[in-house]
Every structure is written in structure tokens, then in C-alpha cells.
């Protein structure tokens, strides 16, 4: 085999998928980093580059503007800004990547929350000349709130600080202390120059003092799944499959995607919210029968008893079933343009279940810049993050978001026009105690913390 076909064969072998998000403000060089990752991993195609060159020439620019690769909408190109989250795809022989490219503009919070909600890793960019700034703290706080398992601090523009180790070390130390205080479980700091290509895809020859991975190496090797033994099994029923044909007269299967943990044939299970119990008789993983299946597989489960189960119910091991509740205490990020107010009637979508609900209280609003809290704000507007107390019309089998990003998350929806109002996370906001957060950010506020 030639070297070329060897590379191809590697690229075509079975690989895993990693979803990650980038966060950075306008001048941190996020577009350059994304462009560098795509370019150096050979994921930009000739016709795409030609289109960018053409468009750049058409506007009188001499060099191709790589931001045009990512700004896909007319309004974005006209205004030279990024409006919305875009999803990009690239691959290396070791892994496929889905990148949620989140803009750092005015609507930053909801955009980053959207991108981070499905991300297993977040890259937070910092300009080496400026160090940790307010925007950096916001990004770290969003990553912590959304419980993104891995955070990469990319200290960019190292070429503009003479590739000096002390500059990097000071920023890395400050950021790590801050992010760790919010409960971010894993932080990796990497000194880079996206423009010059240092430590993005290729190791830098300018920073001998750095012995860690490049950004891409880290993306390729970070574990993409959690240890199943840590997670309780959760199976929201999406759809009941009943063929009622001569071939399958009595078949009744519960279709869904396993939200967390693993299910096993023979396991005793409880159906929520009814509380009825049964045993798993069989599991079909899209046409193949299996003894065990795990998140995020889409499967069909059969039970030994004929129970009344429908879309919206949750099947869980009887030993680990969540307690249904109608009172939800959660942190929400408000994503709609109209406000969320106390007393508002909403719909709450949790897994496959949508129920009526009312906003009983908004105890506090969080200021991401310094993590200070504003008590009883009365309402939340676009991009606000706040604590809410919600009463639902029917019981929900809700987990804490800390235990399961899938069964601890929900949407609030406007029943009048269907607008998605807020992204909700049940339970405590940050992974550490309120006191620890307060201490770490040295808040002067006497009223203390409930975040």
C-alpha cells in the first residue's frame, strides 16, 4: 500500500464520535482556531476554498477571509458577524468530530448554552496578552453549569508574548483555580498560536517547555463516554410498537433511546410515574437481540407483564428508580426574547413527556461576570440565568442534572406559540457547595449563595 491508501484505510476504520463546543469572544481568534483545525486536518475542500477566495476578491479583499468558511448566512456575511450556532464536521484517523461553533456575540449565553448542552468537551479561548477576563469567567461558568465533562483552556496568540512560559503558566493557574472552584471536573491548558499553527494540530517548535498534547491530540484521546457503573439506568418511553399483524399478533415493545446507564434482560424494573413493576423480557438493538444495552443506544424493550405504558413514561431499575415530583427546583437559562415571569403558565418538556406547569418563584438571577446573585428579580430576560421553582400539573421522574444530563434537563415552552423559553437543569447549579463558590470568587455580598 502507498502511504496515501494507508491513511485512507485508517480513516475508514471504525472510530468514535466526539461532540465539542468552542467558546471565545470576538477577538480571541476562535475563527482562526476553527479554520486551523479544519484546514490542518484536511477537512476543507477545494471548492469551498475557491468559493471563499471568490467572495473575498469580490469584496476587494486581497487574502481569502477564512471567516467566510464558517459564516453561512447572508446577514452574517453582510454584517461580518456570526449570528448563530453552526455545526461542523471533521475527521482524523482516530475519531470523528462534531463541532458546535458558538458565536461570542451579544447573545453569547444562550448560544453557548445551546452548544454546550450536547458537548462532551468545551474549548475556552483566551488571548495570552489579556489573560483571564470577564468573558473567560462567563465561559467557564457556562461549562460548569452545563456540566461539560472536559474543559480545554486554549491560551492563544502565544506568538505575541514571545512564547513565554510564565505568561502561560500564570493564566493556566488562574483559570484552573477558578474553574475547579465551580466544579469543572477536568481542565487541560494548552498554549497555542492558531494563526501560526503552534500546538493546534502540529506540536510547536517554539515552546520546548510545553510537554502536553496539541489541541487535536487531546480531542482525539479524551474519553468520550462515562463509566456505566456510575450511572443509574434511565429509559424514557418514546413510542409503543404494536404491529398487530398475523406474524406478530401479541408483540408489544417500548421504543426509546437509553438516556443513561445500562439495561439487562431479567432485570426488575419500575415504570414511572405509575410505580408499576415488571421484568425485562427482551431487548432489541435495532433488529438484533441483546442481553445488555446501554446509553445512548436506541432500543426496543419488552416486559414480562402487559402493563399500561405509553409515551412519556420512564422505565428504570426498581433498585434505582427516581422519586416522581411535581415541584421542580432548577437553574434555567432563558433563551427567548420575551421575559419569563413569576406566575407564568408554561409547558415543561422533560425526556419524552410534556406537561403543564407554572412558574411559582424566581428566587434569584445569576450574574455570570462575577457570579454574584440578584435576589427575587421577578423575571428573567434573554440570556439570563436564574433559579426557578416550578410546579407541574403531573408528576415527573426527574433526576438531578448533576446525575444525568439527559434526565435532569428540560425545556420550558410557551403554550401559546410554541416558543422555546428556557433551558432547565434540575437540582444544584454548580458541582461544589455554594460556600466554596462564594469563597472562590470572593463575593462581598452578605446574603450568601444559593447557586
Amino acid at each position, binding site marked *: 500500500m502507498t502511504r496515501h491508501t494507508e491513511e485512507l484505510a485508517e480513516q475508514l476504520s471504525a472510530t468514535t*464520535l466526539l461532540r465539542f463546543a468552542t467558546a471565545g469572544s470576538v477577538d480571541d481568534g476562535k475563527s482562526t482556531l476553527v479554520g486551523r483545525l479544519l484546514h490542518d486536518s484536511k477537512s476543507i475542500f477545494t*471548492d469551498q476554498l475557491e468559493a471563499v477566495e471568490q467572495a473575498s476578491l469580490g469584496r476587494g479583499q486581497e487574502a481569502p477571509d477564512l471567516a467566510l468558511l464558517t459564516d453561512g448566512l447572508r446577514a452574517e*456575511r453582510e454584517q461580518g458577524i456570526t449570528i448563530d450556532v453552526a455545526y461542523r464536521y471533521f475527521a482524523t484517523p482516530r475519531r*470523528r468530530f462534531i463541532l458546535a461553533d458558538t458565536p461570542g456575540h451579544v447573545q453569547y449565553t444562550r448560544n453557548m448554552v445551546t452548544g454546550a448542552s450536547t458537548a462532551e468537551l468545551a474549548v475556552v479561548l483566551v488571548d495570552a496578552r489579556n489573560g483571564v477576563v470577564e468573558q473567560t469567567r462567563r465561559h467557564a461558568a457556562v461549562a460548569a453549569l452545563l456540566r461539560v465533562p472536559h474543559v480545554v483552556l486554549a491560551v492563544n496568540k502565544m506568538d505575541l508574548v514571545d512564547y513565554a512560559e510564565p505568561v502561560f503558566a500564570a493564566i493556566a493557574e488562574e483559570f484552573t483555580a477558578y474553574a475547579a472552584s465551580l466544579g469543572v471536573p477536568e481542565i487541560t491548558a494548552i498554549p497555542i498560536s492558531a494563526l501560526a499553527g503552534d500546538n493546534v494540530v502540529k506540536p510547536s517548535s517554539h515552546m520546548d517547555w510545553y510537554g502536553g498534547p496539541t489541541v487535536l491530540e487531546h480531542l482525539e484521546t479524551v474519553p*468520550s463516554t462515562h463509566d456505566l457503573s456510575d450511572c443509574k439506568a434511565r429509559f424514557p418511553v418514546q413510542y409503543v*410498537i404494536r*404491529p398487530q399483524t398475523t406474524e406478530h399478533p401479541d408483540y408489544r415493545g417500548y421504543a426509546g433511546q437509553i438516556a443513561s446507564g445500562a439495561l439487562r434482560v431479567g432485570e426488575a424494573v419500575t415504570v414511572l410515574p405509575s410505580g408499576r413493576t415488571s421484568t425485562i423480557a427482551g431487548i432489541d438493538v435495532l433488529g438484533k437481540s441483546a*442481553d445488555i444495552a446501554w446509553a445512548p443506544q436506541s432500543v426496543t424493550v419488552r416486559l414480562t407483564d402487559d402493563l399500561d405504558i405509553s409515551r412519556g413514561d420512564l422505565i428504570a431499575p426498581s433498585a434505582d428508580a427516581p422519586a416522581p415530583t411535581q415541584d421542580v427546583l432548577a437553574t434555567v437559562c432563558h433563551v427567548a426574547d420575551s421575559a419569563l415571569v413569576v406566575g407564568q403558565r408554561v409547558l415543561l418538556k422533560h425526556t419524552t413527556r410534556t406537561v403543564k406547569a407554572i412558574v411559582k418563584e424566581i428566587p434569584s438571577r445569576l450574574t455570570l461576570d462575577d457570579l454574584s446573585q440578584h435576589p427575587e428579580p421577578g423575571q428573567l430576560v434573554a440570556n439570563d440565568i436564574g433559579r426557578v421553582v416550578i410546579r407541574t400539573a403531573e408528576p415527573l421522574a426527574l433526576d438531578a442534572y448533576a446525575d444525568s444530563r439527559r434526565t435532569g434537563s428540560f425545556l420550558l415552552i410557551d403554550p401559546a406559540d410554541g416558543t422555546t423559553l428556557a433551558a432547565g437543569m434540575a437540582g444544584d447549579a454548580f458541582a461544589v457547595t455554594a460556600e466554596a463558590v462564594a469563597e472562590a470568587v470572593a463575593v462581598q455580598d452578605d446574603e450568601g449563595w444559593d447557586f
Partner: protein
Amino acid sequence: MTTAATVTEGTDSPYALSHLDALESEAVHIFREVAGEFERPVILFSGGKDSILMLHLALKAFAPAAVPFSLLHVDTGHNFPEVLDIRDRLVAEHGLRLHVASVQDYIDSGALRERPDGLRNPLQTLPLTEKIQAERFDAVFGGGRRDEEKARAKERVFSLRDEFSQWDPRRQRPELWQLYNGRHAPGEHVRVFPLSNWTELDVWQYIEREQIELPEIYFAHEREVFKRSGMWLTAGEWGGPKDSETVETRQVRYRTVGDMSCTGAVDSDATTLEAVITEIAASRLTERGATRADDKMSEAAMEDRKREGYF
């Protein structure tokens, strides 16, 4: 009994899914969400690889029961016969209901006028949107992938369309976790893209893994073609070649299948799935960049057509 997922070696845990298993699981989840939440869903079905893949995934999602969706073909009137053949065979084999919206009917009745350049893809929007209204479809599956085009990179999995089927990129709902919001008012509908996160290579690798049958025009074969706007178009009654264009026989295959007037063939000797995959993995051109005339019309061609109600 066996476990069905492919377990990957290396740094990942034994419970990591292969990328194809992860994409398959996600697409199936999306099909089932629509089945659970909508009254009248339909799969847009052209007979091309993406729509055949969608049907395959839908069949898996609801087995052993039937697919609870009908199919809708927007027929430009300039179809490849091999594609119509496989369309009709799949419909018969799986006992599906097929709706057809015909561009030719609209031209014949005077409701649409043939364009001077002969392209019919841009004419599909009106028959498509009127059919959606007439049949009161509330969810319409499309095979669009975000890797195809930069306007599509901004597309949601659940994309709300107004009563005129229009897409407004500024008014898209944020899409969080796997919680898809399908709420819509009467007259509005939701376009659903279960293949959003697949790339062209993923599609081909999955087709090979599942041994899915495709129209023969996806594989290299001898064909009479002529060159227009830098692309090899199939000669035929639809309107080519013109006087200045000459027909020649070449060994080609198609990377995408759409209307004959704007889908170009590429020179290829890939006659098997394996060869096609190797060819695509090595290609430095995107699928659309290589073979779609209608996307070359302007920098925002796809965005503009999406705004009007196209996919």
C-alpha cells in the same frame, strides 16, 4: 445472543459506540420523536441515497411494525429511470403510500414557467409547499445534512416553517440537548432532518455496512454525456445537448441524484461500494461543489431557496 453495537478498541471504554452506531441511534431517536408527537408526518423521498438511507433507518426504528409515515416525491419530470424504478420497488416492498407532487403538471397548467436555463430544481418549491398544505402534513422529513452546505450548517434538526413554508434563520428555536420542540400552529409544519450530523462519508460507510441497495447510477458505468458549465450532464429528451454541445460516451457515476438538468456526473471507475468509499475519502471536492449546478447560482443560493420553502 449478541450485543449489537460495535465495540471500539483503544482509549475508549468498552461501552463507547462506533461513530456509525452513534449516528444511527440518534437518527432513530429523531424518527420516533416525530412518530410520537405529530399527526401526519411524511418522508420526502427522491430515490437518492439519502432518502433511501432515511427509509432504511425508519424501517429499523419501528420494526417489526410498519413505518408510520408515507412518502412524498417531488417529481421534476426529468428523472433518471433507474431512480424511479427503485422508488416504486421500495414502495411496493414495504407497503408504503407514495404521494407525488409533479413539476411537469405545474408547467403544463401554466402555474410555473420553464426557466431559460432549463433548471428544474428551483421549480420544486411551489409543488412541494402546496402539497404539504393540501395534505396537511405537519412533519416533513428531509435528507439534508449539515456538512453539505454552509446555510445547512445552521439548520436545526427540527426546523419550524410558517404557513408559507418559509425558513427564517433569525427566528430559529435554540435546540438543546436531545429535547426537540415540535410545537407548531395549525398551517405551520416542521421540517425534520434525521441525517443532520452525518457526512457524505458516513452515509456511504453505513450503506456498505448495512448492504443497502442503491440506484445503479451511483456506480461507474458507460453513459452518453455532454459538458455544460463544467459538468457532465446526461443527454436526453429533457433538453440536452444544445447545438454547440457534443455528446460523448464516458465512464461516470453520480455522487448525488436529483434532476437531470442540474445533477452532474463525475468521471469514475468505482463500480463497488468499497471503491466508491475510497474515491470519496480521497476527493478534494464536496458533493455539491462537484455536481450541483443550482448551488453555484449565487453565494446564498441554498439559503435563498430554503427561505422560500425548499429544503
